[in-house]
């Protein structure tokens, strides 16, 4: 029962020692812990310690109505909540056989991509901060806030939007929203050179990031790495393109890849993904006015909604990687079982443990942030 206490510790004389990073540590993303065994500055072994954010989501969801669960799903991954909402809705729609109106699908795409940009801006700052540069963090979060403003207007909430509902979305866009999205995107695009100047062409940052925590493609496949981290190893795979959902097969976008698979490659992939997301949103903004029609198909009264028995596995591409829900219904008004597969379940645990071995203590935080590991996804 006694928690760690360094003050009283008297370690046996040894060149090895152990060090806790987290849960209360700025080098850790969120409330998470990573225990290190070190020899000097060099990590001999690392061990992830999760559960600080455990809420028992899957248990809670078994006790709530299908629609009540909407409010809880985005909480699973705080920095990038939209894919959680959307994928849960996709799962319920799949089980019920609901056909989502096209306008709603495009709105979802817009929301997803805005969220992806926001998450990437967030993680840029975090990644830079782990190397001691705080300015990108301040910028990134301030620029991300402009996207949150858009979210607030679109969905009524800044962070937790609860905008999706099985069958569609809950609100149509306010007037003139497309224009404001375009303005924000223009602004963000005008800011990207600043980020390049500050971060991506910064010799010191490049020096720090290049070669840090490299993953080969073989290892990536072996360890179940997904998302930008996988693309940074050179594999051109994106759920949006290769297992398309919503209307991604009607959109034009590139899938950026880098071969070396180190922290620098991962940062570069994210940097280019922002550009691609902006491109996607511009297509959506151009397309939306041509799509009249409902934003939600008729759904039953939430208090009396039995979802047909069955199971489904829906995957989406979140900003961190492959996100999937396995939802089982026994034909009742509540899910029989939900299981969420967050990309960070691999990245923050096995991959991080593997990459930590042999690296320097300086790089542990950078590796974690460059993997964009999101602890609440692990804990659930």
């Amino acid at each position, binding site marked *: 029962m006694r928690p760690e206490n360094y003050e009283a510790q008297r370690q046996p004389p040894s060149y090895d020692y152990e*060090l806790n990073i987290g849960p209360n540590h700025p080098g850790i993303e969120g409330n998470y812990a990573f225990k290190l065994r070190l020899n000097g500055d060099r990590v001999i072994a690392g061990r992830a310690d999760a559960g600080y954010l455990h809420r028992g989501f899957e248990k809670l969801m078994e006790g709530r109505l299908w629609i009540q669960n909407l409010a809880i799903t985005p909480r699973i991954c705080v920095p990038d909540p939209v894919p959680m909402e959307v994928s849960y809705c996709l799962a319920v729609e799949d089980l019920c056989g609901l056909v989502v109106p096209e306008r709603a699908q495009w709105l979802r795409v817009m929301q997803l991509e805005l969220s992806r940009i926001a998450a990437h801006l967030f993680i840029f700052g975090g990644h830079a901060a782990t190397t*001691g540069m705080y300015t990108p963090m301040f910028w990134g979060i301030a620029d991300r806030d402009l996207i949150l403003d858009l979210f607030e207007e679109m969905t009524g909430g800044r962070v937790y939007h609860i905008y999706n509902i099985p069958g569609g979305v809950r609100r149509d866009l306010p007037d003139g929203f497309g224009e404001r999205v375009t303005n924000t995107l223009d602004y963000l695009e005008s800011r990207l050179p600043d980020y390049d100047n500050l971060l991506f062409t910064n010799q010191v940052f490049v020096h720090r990031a290049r070669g840090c925590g490299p993953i080969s493609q073989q290892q990536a496949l072996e360890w179940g790495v997904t998302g930008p981290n996988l693309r940074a190893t050179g594999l051109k795979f994106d759920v949006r393109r290769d297992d398309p959902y919503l209307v991604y097969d009607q959109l034009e976008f590139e899938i950026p890849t880098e071969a070396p698979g180190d922290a620098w490659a991962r940062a570069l992939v994210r940097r280019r993904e922002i550009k691609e997301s902006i491109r996607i949103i511009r297509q959506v903004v151009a397309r939306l006015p041509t799509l009249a029609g409902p934003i939600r198909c008729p759904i039953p009264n939430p208090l009396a909604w039995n979802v047909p028995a069955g199971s489904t596995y829906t995957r989406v591409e979140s900003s961190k990687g492959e996100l999937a829900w396995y939802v089982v219904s026994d034909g009742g008004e509540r899910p029989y079982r939900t299981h969420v597969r967050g990309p960070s379940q691999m990245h923050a645990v096995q991959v991080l443990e593997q990459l930590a071995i042999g690296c320097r203590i300086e790089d542990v935080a950078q590796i974690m942030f460059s993997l964009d590991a999101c602890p609440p996804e692990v804990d659930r």
Partner: protein
Amino acid sequence: MDWLSAMRLDALAAVDFHWLGLVLELMLMPLIAFVAGLGLVLMLRKIAARLQRRVGPPLLQPLWDIIKLHAKETQTSHGLIHEIGIVMAIGGYVAAVTLLPVPGMNGLAQQGGLIALLYMTMIPSLGLALGVGQCANPNGSIGISRALTAMLAYDVPMVIVIFGVAFHFGSLNLVHMIAAQQAGGVATWGMVQMPLLALAGLFALQGMLGKQPFEIYVAPAEIATGPMVEMGGKFLGGLFVMQCFQLYTGGALYVTLFLGGGEHWLTFLFKVFVVTAIPMTIAMVFPRYRTEDMVRLFWKWPTMIGLLGIAFVMN
């Protein structure tokens, strides 16, 4: 001249006056350094804020921080050595600032000289090492070992620079150096006379102040601010005071060596603020190097520049 020689006659009185002056200096100079240091800390935070596109702290923020920290009602001490370490940390800088000649007060500087000053600036690191070691926090230990490594790293160019400067002026007395520089206006400034050494000195200053890219021993994301990790209340307050002195010492030393010291307080402080603004600004746009990178860098470029500078100086 007459009244000067007349005063010399009364040797006893002169000695008395001299002693009084020294005591006054001893008390005034740290106070001035502290106040100027508060301003420097504020400038540091304001520069950060500006580059980060925000407003930043109010004017007296550094002062409130220090008062608040000292007014903590419970204090966690890790033993006598811990407390002594902090005292050493502040004391070293207090001693150092008294050895810095400032406009109107150079009596102690006359006595001390550059070597004594350099020696004094080493003490805080050692004191911190003592104090932090007592805390038994591995983050602190790593931090202080990094700080000592960093000291090793930046001391090489720094010693070279100081050697070169001393060679140039032919003296280790800072008062003499200032006098020599002020003799011919800007043209006789160390910076103009020894540009390479001034450049190397700027590197060393960056390292000495521990700013990015050489911020390895604070490194919040890695070792949770290293030496400060176990410091709270008056201990942290002590470190905040130390930071004031540190910024002031670094800036004033550079101004003394290369920018001709201060003709009067206005220009002196102006120069100090300008000089310290440079590392502060650079710190905001660069990340930190790894320890080994930092050592490698310091032993390579500033050292080479410094050596080249010495070569020029010796010519």
